[in-house]
């Protein structure tokens, strides 16, 4: 599903955020991307969502080499990826329904279908009945779940989340992660960038750890040894 081949990313200010990073993520995997802030987690996600392009190396997402993708094909490419943010990036002046409906609207789905799928997505995150509320009328955890509903409403094969539990207490964090797990169960590839080691340990999924832009360890099964090493 995702392949980084000797990827480096240097920003305009000269900072090298990633150096020579290679890894593969298979379809249907759930992967935690960990490391201190500034280690390059966000850069990896940005390269996947094509918010940035690599300076060197190749990033292949969904069988598409992002380097070769023309600007006019980027919208269609992004529709294949659901993105969840720490600050959830909801539109404050639009009700929950509109926020969740946005990915379907840009894809040109018929209104009837939008209605059906938005409700289904809200049902999945446990927010059915709150369609008409504005984001600030919801709790932080609920807002994050609206963000997740928006990310999955168009049923993308790939879901990426950047510190989705950064603002949540442990219980809510677990709840959100279980939600991601449920999407993995139905075949969605899930990548979660987080520095919440408690959660990473709890779930026991594959961990990719970055430090100073370099790959530290990518043990396929047991993440604990590398966790100890990098903390």
């Amino acid at each position, binding site marked *: 599903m995702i392949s980084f081949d000797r990827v480096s990313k240097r920003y305009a200010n000269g900072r090298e955020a990633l150096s020579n990073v290679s890894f593969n993520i298979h379809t249907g995997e759930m992967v935690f991307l960990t490391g201190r802030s500034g280690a390059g987690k966000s850069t990896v996600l940005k390269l996947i969502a094509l918010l940035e392009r690599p300076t060197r190396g190749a990033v292949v997402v969904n069988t598409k080499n992002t380097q070769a993708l023309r600007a006019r094909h980027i919208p269609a490419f992004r529709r294949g990826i659901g993105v969840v943010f720490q600050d959830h990036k909801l539109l404050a002046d639009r009700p929950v329904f509109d926020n969740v409906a946005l990915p379907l609207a*840009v894809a040109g789905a018929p209104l009837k279908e939008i209605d059906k799928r938005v409700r289904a997505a809200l049902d999945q995150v446990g927010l059915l009945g709150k369609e008409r509320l504005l984001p600030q009328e919801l709790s932080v955890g609920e807002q994050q779940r609206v963000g997740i509903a928006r990310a999955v409403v168009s049923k993308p094969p790939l879901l990426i989340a950047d510190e989705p539990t950064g603002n949540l207490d442990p219980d809510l964090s677990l709840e959100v992660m279980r939600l991601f797990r449920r999407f993995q169960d139905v075949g969605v590839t899930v990548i979660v960038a987080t520095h919440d080691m408690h959660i990473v340990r709890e779930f026991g999924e594959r961990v990719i750890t970055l430090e100073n832009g370099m790959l530290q360890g990518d043990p396929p099964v047991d993440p604990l040894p590398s966790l100890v090493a990098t903390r």
Partner: protein
Amino acid sequence: MSLGVSGGRHLQALFGSLGRLARAPFATFLTLLVIALALALPAALKLFVTNAQAATGNFASAVDLSVYLKTEVPLAKAQQLTQAAQQRPDVASVTLIPADKGLEDFRTYSGFGDALAALKENPLPHVLHVRPKAQASSAAALEALRNYFTAWPEVDLVQVDSEWVMRFNAILEVLQRVLVIAVVLFGIGVLAVIGNTIRLEIQGRRAEIEVTKLVGGSNAFVRRPFLYTGMLYGLGGALLAWGILAMIVLLLRDSVATLARLYGSRYMLEGLALTDVGALLGAGVVLGWLGAWISAARHLQRIEPRA
């Protein structure tokens, strides 16, 4: 995407834009007023020119040229020339007034009958009364006709009977040029106003645009509501301009009628014709769309999502 679906999208974008405009009624009204005034000014000028043309239409089409032949030109030659003049495509009719007839008329109408009887021979030449076709009654066309007749060796003098009508037509022509210039300048003004309004709106909705692009919204999708907003501004401004013009006509109608009466005319001020209204509304919509498009093309490209 089927046609019905994309139609639905457009309708949605249209109502979305309408709703946003309605949510800030005062700001929207101010913008509309500026656009309306910029549209109303050239339209008012057009109204003035049209009315001036209509009010003086009777005179303008009645411009005659009196072509005085030299006294030694015989009647037969004068008749020949009359026929030649008739051949010209810009001439409606030619009347030959032979010298004898001229003297007869003069004797009858001038009151100098007795004095004229003292003359041994007729001092008057033969005269051709040339009436140009209506479409050839512009100042330039009359001048060309005058030059044409002046060049004849048999012609002594060409007199355009209504010099002031020519002048008036020349003034109208100047006004028409001014009208074209005004249309262009104020059109650019409307473009600038709408472009700037859209720029501000794009800035105000930056977060929304970023998120929309992030979830895969194409440039066309992001642009669409702004194009509708621009068109609505243009259309609204044009409707308001129409209202302003209707009010002007209403306010001036009585005093213009009084003025016309003093000149022995029953002329009534005309409002905008249906085609003019159509042109005004069309111009508003097109300018609004274009201004929004230019602004969106400039500013939307630069907004890219940052995670």
